[in-house]
């Protein structure tokens, strides 16, 4: 067992057996989507025009929820101490943590996304929706990791976390919603969708390193 796997499976198992977030987050996602027709009216035309942005906002909010708990448990019960003293690089830990985080908090949203698009009256191909939601949720997870590590041990962690992370989520929101919007007008949504994937290509390798640095700073 490599440290990466060890952490990945530890996080996944403890979440799944906890009656975990992977069930709760899609419910939250659906709940927010349900609020839109209730607040904007059931007129599908209205919903349709607003749907791309609304779906991205719902995914963004759902991505905020798991962030606060991400590292606090490991910090409190002393696991973090042992990780810092581990002979293996801490990046294994953050890498495993990121993948587990996405499987728990990103993948369920991705799977739900075509269904939600359908419910909001968008008539678009489901593979296209997936191609937008996969990089978008990954970016939410990666940026969220950095913010979670940054605010670890801070007072009023959860409010602070939202304040820190939402401005950084803005480009993902814009390109995600833009891509969904362009899909709707049958314009191939290549541009914004590629921006998302490019953002991912940049963020993915940087995040474990930055998160590791931040965790080390928090342990001092």
């Amino acid at each position, binding site marked *: *067992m*490599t*440290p990466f796997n*060890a*952490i990945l*499976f*530890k996080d996944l*198992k*403890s979440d799944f*057996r*906890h009656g975990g977030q992977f069930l709760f987050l899609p419910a939250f996602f659906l709940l927010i989507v349900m609020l839109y027709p209730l607040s904007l009216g059931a007129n599908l035309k209205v919903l349709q025009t607003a749907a791309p942005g609304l779906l991205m906002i719902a995914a963004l909010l759902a991505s905020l929820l798991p962030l606060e708990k991400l590292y606090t448990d*490991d910090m*409190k*019960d*002393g*696991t973090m*101490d*042992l*990780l*810092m*003293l*581990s*002979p*293996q690089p801490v990046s294994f*830990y953050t890498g495993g943590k990121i993948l587990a985080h996405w499987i728990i908090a990103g993948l369920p949203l991705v799977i739900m996304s075509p269904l939600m698009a359908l419910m909001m009256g968008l008539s678009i191909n489901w593979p296209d929706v997936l191609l937008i939601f996969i990089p978008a949720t990954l970016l939410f997870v990666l940026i969220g990791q950095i913010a979670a590590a940054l605010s670890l041990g801070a007072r009023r962690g959860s409010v602070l976390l939202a304040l820190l992370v939402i401005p950084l989520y803005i480009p993902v929101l814009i390109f995600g919603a833009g891509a969904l919007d362009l899909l709707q007008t049958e314009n191939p949504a290549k541009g914004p969708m590629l921006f998302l994937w490019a953002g991912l290509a940049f963020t993915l390798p940087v995040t474990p390193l930055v998160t590791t640095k931040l965790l080390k700073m928090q*342990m*001092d």
Partner: protein
Amino acid sequence: MAVFSGYNLSCARGHRLIFEDLSFEIESGQILTLTGSNGCGKTSLLRMMAGLLDPFTGSIQWKGENTGSDFLSRNILWMAQETPLKPQLSVIENLQFLSCIMGGPSDKAAIQESLEKAGLGRFSHYPVSYLSMGQRRRTLLTLLYLVKRKIWLIDEPTNHLDKEGRDHLVNGVSDYVKQGGIAVIATHRPELWGSCTILDVSAFREGTKEERQAA
């Protein structure tokens, strides 16, 4: 020259010093127990030895050289008062994870074997949430035998332990030091550990430097 030593250590927390001008020296095959009243800095001193806390002043040395993180991560086994066990995972899964990140064996057979030795074999597939505090502590203590290290730093290991668990631990520690290991144990009951050097950390609280120098 002592094998493991610390000189002129002091520890700052917020605006005050918890202890100052503290020094210790240990040879291979010795037990050092840290005693003292609550809040005197036993845990902080242990964390300093583990490299988790930077001393405000002073240095910690191994064979005359300052210990760095590379040395510490390969030679120290840090066992805190907290129990880093995830309640949803089974005993064996938890130990696999911890042993793996500490660079020990992570195959089930080896872990099962050491659990058997500790008398915990029958629990090995239970989720940790079913275990009592004492059983959790004993589960963690099996890591001492799984991961081979030169220095054990153990914080209040007898908390929650019954007599059987305590005897088991005391025997384990004395076997370990007989083989040349070094054990540093923060405890309120130094008499448990047989022949050991006792360091009373509360004697080094702030403002006691002059008193000690006069004496």
